[in-house]
């Protein structure tokens, strides 16, 4: 058997590809271009999004090459990722967590039917958890890890033309 690290390097698991996004996301600011720390909060999802987030941390996506890191508390995070659909029993706790984010910060809503942003200040079942102007975008439904990564890259680097110019980066 090959020595562990070599075994891994030989596999070339990280994928070089374009991550296409379907909708627009607001960028947080130029200072996050090379580093974005995210904190993921389960606001009441049925656990499949938790699995998706776990899959996003797989070597295939290798988020660290883009400077995307998973923080352990909201105080270390620039972006809060809320996994829905939100439950009323967690509303207070989610709101308290949103308040912990150091500014500038943003919130990405994942899973749950689409809400109109930023035209109205109603956030559907997200109401009471987060302010509409803090939301940088949303990924309704059951997004795959690649879609979430595309959203994160868009939030990190600003709008591009159609696809994100990340192909070829390792």
């Amino acid at each position, binding site marked *: 058997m090959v020595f562990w690290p070599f075994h891994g390097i030989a596999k070339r698991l990280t994928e070089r590809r374009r991550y296409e996004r379907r909708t627009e996301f607001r960028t947080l600011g130029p200072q996050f271009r090379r580093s974005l720390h995210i904190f993921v909060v389960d606001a009441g999802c049925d656990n499949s999004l938790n699995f998706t987030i776990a899959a996003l941390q797989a070597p295939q996506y290798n988020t660290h090459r883009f400077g995307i890191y998973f923080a352990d508390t*909201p105080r270390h995070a620039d972006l809060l990722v809320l996994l829905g659909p939100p439950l009323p029993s967690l509303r207070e706790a989610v709101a308290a967590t949103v*308040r912990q984010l150091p500014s500038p910060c943003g919130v990405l809503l994942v899973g749950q039917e689409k809400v109109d942003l930023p035209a109205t200040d109603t956030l559907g079942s997200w109401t009471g958890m987060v302010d509409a102007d803090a939301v940088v975008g949303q990924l309704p439904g059951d997004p795959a890890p690649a879609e979430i990564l595309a959203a994160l890259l868009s939030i990190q680097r600003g709008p591009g033309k159609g696809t994100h110019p990340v192909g070829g980066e390792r």
Partner: protein
Amino acid sequence: MMLLWLAVGLYIAGAFFASRRPLSYGVAFLASLVALAAGVAALSSPPQTASVPFFDNLRLSLSLDRLSATFILISSLSAVLLSLFAIGYGKLYGSRTAAAFSLGFAGVLIVLAAGDSLTFLSGWELVTIFSFLLMTDDVRYSGAGKLERRSPLVSASFRFLVFGEISSMLLLLAFAIVLVTQKTISFAEIRQAGPAFLVLATLGAAIKMDAVPFHIWMPGVYEQTADHSSAFLSVPLTLMGVYGLERFVTVAAPSPQWLVVLVLLGSLTAFWGALQAAAARKLKSLPAYSTVENNGMIITVIAASALAASVGTKSLSYLASFAAAAAVVLALGHALAKSLLFMSIGHAKESLGVKTIDEARGVWRGVGPVPGIGILVAGLSLSAFPPLLGYTGEWMVLETVFQSSRFTASGEKFFLAVAGFLTALAIGLAVFAMVKLVGYTALGYNHERFGSPVPDRPMKIAQLLSIILIPLLGIAAPFLLSRFGYAGLFGGLLGVPSPLLLQSGSPLFGVVSPTMFAAVIVVLAAIPLLVWRLRRPRVRRVEPWYGGLSLEEREYFTEPAFSQILLHMLRRFYGTAEGRHEGRRQLHIRDRFARPLRAVAAVTMRVGGALSRTLMNGHIYYYVAYILFAFVVVLIIRW
């Protein structure tokens, strides 16, 4: 010398006014100031003696040399702070406490200035008796001035009395031996007393210093007594022991074997005290055990100093002087820090009405910044935080025992290294204990509980004074030690100007400069912090984040939980066991010295009780009359 008499007189006057407690403590404060002045004056003048003829050719005398002056200075410094504190705090306790407090300090002065063994012994006895009275005072007033009776822990106090009397007996025997062999009681005339004297006298002093296993009375008594009384028991009372120890090793012929035993006893005491302090749960048993730890270190360095002096080579003479200086720094650092710790803890404890560390969380926020900073500064000094006095002291202890290789005898080398190992462990454990105390009480979260007001102006002034004195004296340690006669230990090196650098050995072993350290802290930390604060940074305050829900009081990481890992790892030492009672679970530990020593104390008390019932079953006045009669008869016979 006049100042000394004046101080003693004022103390006695203070005791007369005991019924008016603030006045009594005020007079004691004046007396302490006078005593402090006496100490300072005596330090810079040649030794003086005043004596009166007593019996035969024996003379009772008071004598002030450099050693006496040093200790009078240290003990008066704590007396000044404690009596000032007591002007406010003493209102909460009875007048017997006030009287015993003043007389106790008078007794300490007599011991420290005694020129002969009889005066020394009388002072020693007086202090023991007044300490006992301090402990057993059962009067206590609530904040509103209402009288409350409380039940003092009589059994623990009797244990103190038993050990105190054992100590006096040992000293009496030691002095008797000297009287028989050298026909003198004057310390100045005793020359090279034999090993029997050294063993008995140093053991007597060590017992007074609560050396293991004679420390077991402390936690129980400390919890019961008023805090200025606890500080009295912790500081002047044990200083007396330190002074005695220093005095006896200078007048006795050195006995290397016994000194090695003392070194080991000291380091074991330090280790055991720190071990118990780290596990202590009560607000006052932690400082009590910390006193044991400090005294252990002092015994170690004094014995090491005598050991080094007995060899007499150049490098060991330097080490002897260094170790003696270490004892002084430790004693001074401990006196100040422990006085402050007891004052601040007393302030917090009375205000919050609590007993355990866990209940006294958040003193800074809940009671006030003064007791909060007081506990912080005292705790930092006792856990050897540079450049405070405790740091210099503990560094000196370690440097002393780590130079064991300078000794020639292999036994001394080995046992000093063992002592170094135990002392280092002790210092580590003491840091743990102090982090626990400071972290929970001073800096902890108060759960929105606030203390009730206590009569606090003099209390605050006394604490503030100590808070300023501890770092100040720490920074000024080189100048201070030079005044005490240890100027030879200082030099300059590597850009540190002379005489700011304390050198631990000759040839050079280790160096430290608390003054430079303070300068560095000021430049690198204090000034930037000040500049940052002055720029008024924009700060957003949010509630702490505990997983999204607010933290309930029952969810707070408790103080026993903080020490649990230690109790588990060192379970062999602690005898840790889990107790289950009606569904309640908790960890129990026991002081392994407690049971055998309590048995000894119990037997002594039982024998004493039996004797008093069989032999001395008359009225107390008869015995007073017997004693007077005997005294008169002896005088008449000798005439």
